[in-house]
């Protein structure tokens, strides 16, 4: 019997739309779950996924990927790569594992939404595999750090983080619940697969893989880039959807979700990936700056993909590009200053070599962020460590839940964007975060930032200790300077040598 080639039967086999006889179309695909925007089933038949894969092919390829990731881990397990790596790199791992693994289960839920409620058969097929991908990502990223738990208790946060009210996790959940868990299939496809996965996951899962390779952490490099091979497949769910929406006059709706989620993803990644690339990774191993990775993956590549599909550049694009110069530095400074409330030990990253690198990659750094680090450095040199700890809490944005921050120095640019809505005051870090809120104020109005909770008396006692306990950060997990201030002594020695 002659066998047909896959391309000869794939479209027919996955065309599983039918005319429901016992229920209405809206009962089978409730509009709020499918995000169908009034487009009938027939309008979805033209969805043509660029990536055609059958389930047996999926299993075969995934098996090979897993064999690769797990065998590299097994081969390197008894090496002492972790112990020998710089504490800054160890903090990259802690930050990554606390921030992402459990969110992958939310992503799996999001894929499941598309697999069941997507009106396009091709979307359902791709999302079925995407759903399995995301489970793989959660399990890989929980299994890999598990071996590190006995070496350092902070790795417990790989599994624990999302069960806590840690400020950074409140920020991550606010985004991921919004983007992945609580929207219809079309909005998930636009926000998660298109805006987030074709764009921003590359920053963390490829950019950081490049840094990991430089550091020599092949186990981590190999594992996260293996994850990105899944992403690059199921991220293609969103593209053909944009075509359907545009053909049915829904460009405005598509653009709105894409704009919201690009901005929201940008804010989170500037904090997590930005600090990891520009400060945590030892300066000798930094492949490129966060800004350079953003230019490679987001500006020259993702922006072009956006236009190629018929969408427009987000209205705030110039602001985003301008923010590339300071976002990672502002977040890093906050991480270090408020170091007791991190589940990782934050490196300062301001030795002479670091500073030279920062000034080269971000001209003007010394005149802005550098001046603040000068004060911190002097205080530490003079034994006034107490002055380098915070006495107040940072003001958090009511959309991204991250500190309201910008570049310090003579041209002080920090600005609050306040808004009154139904008797409550909200504060935003940027015009775009305020715009996101105003798109769906009823959706967001009830959320309390950690500062709102503090002011409402929900955090007791209202002290640092009370806040640490509220965030489930227990002794042994709380952050401090990653290098135990050894960098200060290096600066002292250099200054003494120069003076002598």
């Amino acid at each position, binding site marked *: 019997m002659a066998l047909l080639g896959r391309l000869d039967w794939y479209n027919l086999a996955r065309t599983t739309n039918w005319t429901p006889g016992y229920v209405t179309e809206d009962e089978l695909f409730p509009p709020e779950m499918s995000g169908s925007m009034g487009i009938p089933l027939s309008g979805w038949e033209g969805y043509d996924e660029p*990536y055609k894969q059958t389930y047996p092919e999926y299993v075969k390829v995934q098996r090979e990927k897993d064999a690769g990731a797990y065998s590299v881990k097994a081969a390197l397990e008894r090496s002492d790569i972790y112990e020998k790596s710089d504490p800054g790199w160890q903090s990259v791992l802690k930050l990554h594992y606390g921030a992402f693994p459990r969110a992958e289960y939310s992503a799996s839920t999001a894929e499941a939404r598309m697999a069941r409620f997507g009106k396009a058969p091709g979307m359902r097929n791709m999302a079925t595999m995407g759903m399995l991908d995301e489970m793989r990502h959660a399990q890989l990223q929980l299994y890999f750090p598990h071996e590190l738990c006995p070496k350092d208790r902070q790795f417990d946060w790989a599994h624990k983080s999302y069960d806590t009210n840690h400020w950074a996790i409140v920020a991550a959940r606010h985004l991921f619940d919004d983007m992945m868990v609580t929207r219809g299939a079309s909005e998930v496809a636009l926000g998660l697969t298109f805006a987030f996965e074709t764009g921003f996951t590359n920053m963390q899962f490829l950019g950081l893989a490049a840094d990991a390779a430089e550091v020599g952490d092949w186990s981590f490099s190999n594992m996260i880039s293996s994850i990105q091979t899944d992403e690059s497949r199921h991220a293609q769910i969103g593209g053909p959807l944009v075509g359907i929406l545009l053909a049915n006059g829904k460009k405005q709706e598509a653009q709105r979700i894409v704009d919201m989620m690009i901005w929201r993803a940008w804010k989170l990644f500037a904090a997590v990936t930005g600090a990891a690339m520009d400060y945590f990774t030892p300066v000798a191993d930094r492949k490129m700056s966060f800004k350079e990775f953003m230019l490679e993956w987001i500006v020259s590549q993702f922006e072009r993909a956006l236009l190629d599909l018929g969408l427009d550049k987000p209205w705030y694009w110039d602001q985003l590009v301008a923010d590339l110069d300071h976002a990672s530095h502002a977040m890093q400074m906050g991480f270090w200053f408020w170091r007791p409330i991190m589940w990782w030990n934050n490196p300062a990253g301001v030795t002479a070599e670091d500073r030279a690198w920062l000034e080269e990659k971000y001209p003007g750094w010394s005149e802005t962020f550098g001046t603040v680090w000068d004060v911190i450095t002097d205080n530490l040199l003079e034994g006034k460590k107490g002055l380098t700890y915070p006495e107040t809490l940072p003001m958090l944005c009511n959309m991204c839940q991250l500190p309201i921050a910008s570049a310090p120095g003579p041209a002080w640019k920090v600005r609050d964007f306040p808004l009154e809505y139904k008797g409550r005051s909200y504060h935003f870090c940027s015009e775009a975060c305020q715009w996101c809120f105003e798109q769906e104020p009823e959706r967001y109005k009830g959320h309390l930032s950690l500062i709102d909770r503090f002011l409402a008396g929900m955090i007791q006692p209202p002290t640092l200790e009370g806040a640490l306990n509220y965030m489930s950060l227990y002794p042994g997990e709380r952050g401090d300077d990653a290098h135990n201030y050894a960098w200060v002594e290096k600066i002292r020695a250099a200054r003494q040598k120069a003076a002598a």
Partner: protein
Amino acid sequence: MSDISQSHINNKVGPVMRQGDLAKAVSEAAEIDNPGKTITVEDKLAYLRIQTDGEMFLQRQTIEEMLGRPFSMNELEVDRIAQIGRSRAS
């Protein structure tokens, strides 16, 4: 990059592959299957960015020859971490 606002105006296409045998085979196949075109391969240690302008052809047989073993096109995914431009299989 001197002008950020212009950097998206490019017409580069091609796969980004994790470092390894397959990535090398694909970059070699890109040279063979696209005669007369300039193929650029940026080595980022963890990954290779294999690109050309406009359109890039990749044939299964060529990749097979470069790898020295049987290969089916969907195995590209094992190491493909991004696809720049739109892809079509035939």
